[in-house]
């Protein structure tokens, strides 16, 4: 029933309430500006070299790596939700599945984009595939993240093809239908890949003998940070999904998912956070009392420099760890939305703080006896590039929300009929 396909309304689900086109463009405009600035900053780095950043020989990894690790951890909600819905058959999370895939896609594609600017020779990226070093955690990460981005893109295709106009083409609709039937396979592959690369991101730091702040013992070839990173990723992923969905509901001014979805996500996040905080506390004790001294480093050395004092440990484990874990687990049924979202925010902040300490603090702390404690402030190019990625995420998400059935019940009539 198309009048002409060039009307914007034609591309939006029949009966779905969306803002007018001009309002939507007004919403997008500032994000497009930020994205443009980000592209410009990234372009400067590619053209002039990495001297455009404030990274140097002592701070070889900076803001970008820290933020990359953070968004990959927060984007873990994608694989975990897929794993829960398709493999563990937790149907109550199905309403959030599409948005999880989009959030995951945004996080991973953004991270890969930043990484391409971060390396000195982006055109040599294929070397890792051609001459892989199987001992290196970074090799594992490269392979896994590339495959996983591929899987996420494939998982995004059915959502794209369910656009009102696109699904009128029988070939698209039929292909989407067939792909949808095979989703559990992709969900399984995604879970497998995610397990390994989330872990390897932890392993990245855990194997560094030369950085005793990061170095951990572990099981077989995997340091304890391997498992801690997986736990923290699956604990914060659902929380991040809650925050994104709540933000979308705020902007759209309507309820997008059934109320119990938030509670479910909060509960899952809470339980996993409890496990993670326990594991982390044990790991910290082992590290401070056994691992570091055996390498010749006293624990107090790690905390004698401002602002990285022992209070940071308290903040990470208690304020951003135990507290949200408690709130999410025990108040998820009775609590109001506000409290759940605050707890989710604290949980995500905790994971981001953890990534910060492992990337930036590790490099700031001295190793040799005559090393100073080092400072690093990111340059505007680094900040702008990352802001560009955030803007890219908001734009992709906004477009997906407007034109694609991200939330199955967004029409508000509460009905849901499965196609198969």
């Amino acid at each position: 029933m198309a009048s002409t396909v060039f009307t914007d309304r034609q591309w939006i689900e029949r009966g779905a309430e969306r803002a007018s086109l001009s309002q939507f463009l007004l919403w997008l405009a500032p994000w497009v500006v930020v994205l443009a600035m980000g592209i410009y900053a990234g372009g400067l780095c590619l053209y002039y070299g990495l001297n455009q950043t404030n990274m140097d020989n002592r701070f070889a990894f900076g803001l970008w790596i820290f933020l990359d690790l953070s968004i990959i951890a927060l984007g873990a909600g994608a694989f975990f939700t897929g794993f829960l819905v398709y493999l563990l058959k937790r149907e109550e999370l199905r309403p959030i599945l599409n948005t999880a895939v989009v959030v995951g896609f945004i996080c991973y594609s953004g991270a890969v984009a930043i990484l391409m600017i971060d390396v000195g020779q982006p055109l040599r990226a294929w070397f890792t595939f051609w001459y892989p070093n199987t001992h290196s955690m970074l090799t594992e990460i490269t392979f896994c993240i590339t495959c996983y981005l591929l899987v996420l893109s494939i998982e995004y295709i059915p959502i794209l093809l369910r656009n009102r106009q696109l699904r009128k083409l029988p070939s698209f609709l039929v292909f989407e239908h067939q792909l949808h039937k095979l989703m559990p396979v992709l969900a399984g592959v995604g879970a497998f890949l995610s397990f390994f690369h989330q872990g390897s991101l932890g392993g990245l730091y855990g194997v560094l003998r030369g950085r005793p702040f990061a170095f951990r013992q572990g099981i077989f070839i995997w340091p304890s940070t391997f498992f801690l990173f997986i736990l923290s990723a699956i604990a914060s992923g659902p929380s991040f999904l809650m925050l994104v969905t709540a933000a979308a509901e705020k902007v759209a001014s309507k309820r997008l998912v059934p109320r119990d979805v938030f509670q479910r996500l909060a509960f899952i996040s809470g339980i996993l956070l409890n496990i993670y905080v326990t594991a982390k506390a044990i790991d910290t004790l082992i590290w401070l009392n056994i691992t570091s001294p055996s390498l010749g480093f006293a624990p107090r050395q790690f905390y004698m420099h401002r602002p990285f004092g022992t209070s940071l440990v308290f903040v990470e484990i208690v304020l951003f760890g135990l507290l949200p874990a408690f709130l999410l687990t025990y108040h998820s049924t009775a609590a109001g939305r506000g409290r759940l979202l605050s707890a989710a925010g604290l949980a995500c902040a905790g994971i981001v703080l953890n990534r910060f300490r492992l990337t930036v603090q590790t490099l700031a702390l001295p190793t040799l006896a005559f090393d100073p404690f080092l400072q690093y402030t990111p340059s505007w190019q680094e900040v702008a590039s990352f802001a560009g990625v955030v803007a890219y995420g908001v734009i992709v998400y906004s477009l997906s929300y407007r034109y694609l059935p991200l939330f199955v019940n967004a029409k508000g009539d509460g009905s849901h009929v499965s196609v198969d």
Partner: protein
Amino acid sequence: MFPWTDGFRWTLNHIIFLSLFFAVLLTTVTTVFSALWRAVHVLQTHSAAEICWKAAFAELPDSERSCRHELAGRVISRKCDNAFDCRRCSQYSQFAVLPAAETGADMGFHYPKNRFYHRGHTWVELQEDGTLTVGLDELAEHLIGSPDSFEMPEVGSEIELNGTAWRMKKNGKEIQIRAPIEGKVVATGSPEEGWYLKIRPRLDLGDPMTLRHLLRGAEIRGWLNRELERLQLQLRTPNTAPSLADGGVLLDGLMDALPEADWETVLASTFLEG
């Protein structure tokens, strides 16, 4: 990466790592190609129309998915969750034997009793030579008026149940008419002739299942009532509330009479979003 690459070492690590990588890649690629291959296969057989229809049906709001037995007054309320596929409805028989509401006046519409009606507002009529004639019902004709143009399928081509039977254009809007039955087109008609297609059905007309999904008898009045209610709501001028009306008689050619109405929504609801 590959054994013939310069510097490749046959260590256990290498073998495990690369085997896993290639296994993952193979699984992913196989999945996509499998979906593609199956899609092509489906498109080549006749099942594409069924999948498209099921997807379109899933998008219908509850108010447009009333079961025919509710329309007939056999049950108080029942929503179809089977894409109006009465042929494969396990509960059809149990509802069909219930008494229907009294049939009253046709409200001024001509719905001859020897025709069977599809919810996309087409009818089929059996001919003596075993073919079926297909046409637009009176409500649809009153809605559209005289079409600006129409595009018929080729004689000899196959049409699928709930697929596109033919297309019409009116006032710049394109309307796709859903086919009430599957079969081969043996002749095409026109609005003046009063019918649009002559079809040789694929299924046996002697089998009551073949036409089971089409509305008839007591169901027509209930169905038309609903459709008129819906049209009143959808065609009202903006900023007015729906008013209680006695139905009345529809004007001819509503698309010409009310050009400012939201025809996109009206046509999509009436012809079940083609």
